[in-house]
C-alpha cells in the first residue's frame, strides 16, 4: 500500500466511522448490496415477465422443480412424481415442511391455483392447458394432472427458468386474474420481500426467511438446497452506469449484475473487484422484420439483408472491443447447449454479398419505399443495433426512416399490424436471452404461426409442423435432429436474422464469494466476509 493510499484509507475510515454506527457495521457481512440490471417496478412474475421481475421472484417464491446448470429439471418443492400412461397422468407429492412467509403450510390447493394462473400465461403452460382434462388436489400434499395427450416435457415446464416461471403462491394470491397484478408478495422461497422498504426506482429489500428448509443437496441454479448465508439483500437501483461503476469501485455496493463492457478493464485493474461472465447462456441479438408488408413480405428481400448483414459489426456495437464477449452465431439456437444446431447457418458467415443482395432486392420489387426502422434509443443494445442497421440499409440503397423513440413506444408500435406508413413498422431490434433459445419450447420468437406469432407475424406451415413434431419427439436424439431441421428451415425462410451471440460480465467485490455463472443472479450460497 502506498503511503498516500494509506493516508486516504485512514482518513476515509475516520469519516465512515463517523458515518456508520458500530452496530450496523457488525452485521455488515450479512448484508449484500446488489445493483440489478433494471428497476424493479413491479413484482408479479406471472403478470409481468421482465427478467428483473423473474430474478427478484426467485428469492421470494419457490418452484416445484428447478433446472440445474445442465438445464435438467430436479425436484425442488416436490418430493417425487409418478408418470403414468406414457405421460398422460402426472402425480406429484410435495415435500415436508414447506411454509409460506405468513406461516401457513404450502398445500396442494395452493399449487393447483398457482399452476392454473401460470398456465394461462406461459406458452408451455398453454400447451398443457390445451390437453388438460383435470388438475386436482388429491390430498394436502398430492396433486395430479390428467391430460388427453401425453406430455413428456412436464418437468421441464414446471422447472424452467424462462419467464413466466411456475412459481407457487398462496391460493388467495393465485386466484388473481392472470392479467391483473397481485398486491401481496407472500411466497415460500428463501427470502421475504420487505414491502414497506420498497421504493420502486431506488430500493428493494429482501430478508432471510427463518422458516425456509433448504433441500439437502448442494444448490445449483434453481435446483438443490437454496442456503442463504445472508440476512439481508438490498437491491440498489442505480440508473446511471457511470455512477454504478463508481459505487462498485468505492465499495458502496457489493455486486453489479450488468456492468457495461467498456468499464470492465477499469474494474479488472481494481484489486478489490472480481469480474466474470454472468450468464453462460448469453444472449442472441435479433433483427426482426415485418412479414406482413412489402418489401419484407417477400422472402427475397429478407434474404438480401441476411446475406449482407455482418454479425461482427452488430456485436462490436453491442458489447465493444472484448472478443471474449461475443461470437458469430450461424444459428437460431444457443451455442453450447445440447440442442444447438448450425444447420443452414452458412448464409450468415463468409464474405458479405452486397451486389447479390441489391439484385435480390430488385427482384423482390423494392422501389425506394420508406423502410420504417424502430429504434429504442434509451436501451443501449437496441440503439447500437439500430445504428448499424441504418448504415447497412443505406448501403443497400434502401430509404431508411429511422424512428428514434423509447422502449415503451417500440413495445407498443411493434404490436401494430397496420401498414408501416400508417403507424406500423418494417424493422425493430431486440435480443433474446440464450436461456430462451435452447429449444423451441420457450422460444416464442421462432414460431411462424402467422397472426398468432410473435411480432412480425411470420407465417410458414412447414416450420410450425416441425415444431409440433419436436414436442412429440420420443427422445432427445430425435428431438435434436428435428431442431436441426427447424434451424435450416428458419434460415431459409428468414423468420428473423440473428445478429450474433453475446455475453455479459458481472462484477463483485472480492470479499463476496460464491457468485456463480447463471442466466439469473443466484444469491443462495453467496457469502460476504
Amino acid at each position: 500500500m502506498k503511503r498516500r493510499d494509506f493516508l486516504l484509507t485512514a482518513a476515509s475510515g475516520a469519516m465512515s466511522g463517523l458515518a456508520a454506527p458500530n452496530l450496523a457495521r457488525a452485521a455488515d457481512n450479512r448484508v449484500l448490496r446488489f445493483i440489478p440490471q433494471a428497476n424493479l417496478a413491479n413484482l408479479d412474475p406471472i403478470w409481468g415477465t421482465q427478467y428483473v421481475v423473474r430474478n427478484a421472484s426467485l428469492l421470494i417464491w419457490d418452484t416445484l422443480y428447478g433446472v440445474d446448470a445442465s438445464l435438467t429439471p430436479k425436484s425442488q418443492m416436490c418430493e417425487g412424481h409418478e408418470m403414468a400412461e406414457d405421460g398422460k397422468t402426472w402425480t406429484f407429492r410435495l415435500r415436508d415442511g414447506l411454509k409460506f412467509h405468513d406461516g401457513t403450510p404450502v398445500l396442494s390447493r395452493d399449487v393447483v391455483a398457482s399452476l392454473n394462473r401460470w398456465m394461462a400465461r406461459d406458452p408451455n403452460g398453454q400447451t398443457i392447458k390445451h390437453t388438460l382434462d383435470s388438475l386436482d388436489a388429491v390430498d394436502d400434499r398430492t396433486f395430479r394432472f390428467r391430460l388427453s395427450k401425453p406430455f413428456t416435457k412436464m418437468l421441464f415446464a414446471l422447472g424452467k427458468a424462462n419467464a413466466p416461471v411456475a412459481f407457487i403462491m398462496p391460493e388467495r394470491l393465485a386466484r388473481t386474474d392472470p392479467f391483473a397484478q397481485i398486491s401481496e408478495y407472500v411466497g415460500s422461497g428463501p427470502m421475504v420481500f420487505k414491502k414497506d422498504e420498497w421504493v420502486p426506482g431506488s430500493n428493494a429489500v429482501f430478508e432471510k426467511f427463518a422458516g425456509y428448509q433448504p433441500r439437502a443437496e448442494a444448490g445449483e441454479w434453481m435446483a438443490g438446497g437454496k442456503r442463504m448465508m445472508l440476512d439481508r439483500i438490498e437491491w440498489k437501483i442505480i440508473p446511471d452506469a457511470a455512477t454504478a461503476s463508481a459505487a462498485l469501485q468505492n465499495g458502496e455496493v457489493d455486486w453489479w449484475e450488468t456492468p457495461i463492457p467498456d468499464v470492465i478493464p477499469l474494474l479488472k485493474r481494481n484489486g478489490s473487484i472480481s469480474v466474470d461472465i454472468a450468464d453462460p447462456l448469453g444472449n442472441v441479438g435479433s433483427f426482426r422484420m415485418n412479414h406482413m408488408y412489402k418489401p419484407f413480405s417477400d422472402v427475397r428481400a429478407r434474404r438480401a439483408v441476411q446475406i449482407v448483414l455482418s454479425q461482427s459489426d452488430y456485436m462490436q456495437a453491442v458489447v465493444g472491443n472484448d472478443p471474449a464477449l461475443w461470437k458469430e452465431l450461424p444459428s437460431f439456437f444457443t451455442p453450447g447447449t445440447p440442442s444447438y444446431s448450425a444447420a443452414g447457418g452458412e448464409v450468415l458467415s463468409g464474405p458479405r454479398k452486397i451486389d447479390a443482395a441489391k439484385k435480390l432486392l430488385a427482384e423482390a420489387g423494392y422501389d425506394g419505399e420508406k423502410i420504417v426502422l424502430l429504434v429504442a434509443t434509451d436501451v443501449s443494445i437496441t440503439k447500437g443495433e439500430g445504428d448499424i442497421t441504418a448504415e447497412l440499409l443505406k448501403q443497400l440503397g434502401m430509404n431508411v426512416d429511422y424512428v428514434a423513440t423509447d422502449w415503451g413506444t417500440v413495445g407498443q408500435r411493434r404490436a401494430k399490424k397496420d401498414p408501416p406508413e400508417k403507424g406500423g413498422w418494417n424493422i425493430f431490434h431486440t435480443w433474446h436471452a440464450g436461456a430462451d433459445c435452447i429449444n423451441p419450447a420457450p422460444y416464442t420468437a421462432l414460431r411462424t404461426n402467422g397472426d398468432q406469432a410473435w411480432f412480425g407475424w411470420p407465417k410458414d406451415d412447414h416450420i410450425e409442423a416441425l415444431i409440433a413434431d419436436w414436442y412429440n419427439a420420443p427422445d432427445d436424439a430425435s428431438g435434436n435432429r428435428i431442431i436441426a431441421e427447424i434451424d435450416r428451415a428458419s434460415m431459409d425462410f428468414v423468420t428473423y436474422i440473428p445478429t450474433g451471440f453475446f455475453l455479459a460480465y458481472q462484477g463483485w467485490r472480492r470479499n463476496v464469494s460464491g457468485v456463480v455463472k447463471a442466466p439469473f443472479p443466484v444469491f443462495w450460497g453467496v457469502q460476504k466476509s
Partner: protein
Amino acid sequence: MSAVLPGDPAAAPTLPDVLPPVRRRGAVMRFVVRHPTIVAGGALIGLMIFIAICAPYLHTVDPTALAPARRTRAPSPQYWFGTDMLGRDIYSRVLYGSRVSLIVGFSVALLASVIGMLIGLVSGFVRWTDALIMRIMDGLMAIPGILLAIALMALTRGSVQNVIIAITVPQVPQVARLVRGLVLSLREQPFVEAATASGSRFWKIAFRHILPNTLAPLTVQATYICASAMITEAILSFIGAGTPPIIPSWGNIMAEGRALWQVKPYIVFFPAIFLSVTVLAVNLLGDGLRDALDPRAAGRL
C-alpha cells in the same frame, strides 16, 4: 421603477428608452474597450457559426460513418478527438454537432421570443384576455420545463424539429410574462396614455410605442433562452429523449459516451468543452447587451 420579472436571469432592472446613442470617434476600439463581453461573446459565437457552416471543409469525415472495429480509439493524429463506441470520428461529430446545437439554440430563442412577445403584448394590452391567457401561461409554467419537454418528446419521435418544439413550449410563458409585465408598466407611461387618449388603435400603439421598448430586454432574455436551450438539448439526450443518435449533436455525443467517461474521458470532454464555450459566449453576449442597452446600469459607481 423596476419590475423584476419571473424567471428572468437578466432581470433588466430598468427599462431603456432607446438604444444608447452611438458615438463615432474611434468607433471600433472604443466599442471593444467599452463592451469587452459583447466582443468576446460575439467573436466566440462567430467562430462557432463558422465551424458549423464550414464543417465539411475542416478536415472532417462523414460523422455518421460507422467502423465498429475501430471503436473507442484515443485521440491521435488520425482521429484528432478519438473515436466513439461505434467507431465514428468524434472530431467530425463534434464539428457537425455544432450545427444541431446552434440551430436548436437559435431557433428556440427566436421562436420563444416571437411567440411569447405576441402573447405578452395581447395579454398586457387587451385587458379582458389577460386573465385567461395568464392562467394558461401559469398552467404551462406550472409544469417544470424539462419534464414538459420530456413528455413532448415521448409524444413524438426524436428529431431536431421536435426537440426545438419541445424546448420552446416551456420557454414561451416566461417571455410572455416578461413582455406582459413590461407592457403593464409602459401602459401607465405618459406617452402611451397620450396615444391611447388620442384614440390610436391597439396594434398601432403596440407596434409604434410598446414593441420598441420591449425589444431591448427581450433581446437580452433571448440570449439566455438560447443558452439554456442548448443545455436543455444536452439534458434531453442525457435522459434518452433528445435528437436521434444518427444526427450528431453535442448533447447526444456526451450522452452516449458518459458511461465511459472514467475510461474514455475524451468522448465526453470534447463536446462538453464546445458546448460550455458556446453557452459561455452566448451568456457573455447577453450580459454585455444588458449592460450596453441599459444606460443606467452601465458605468456607475
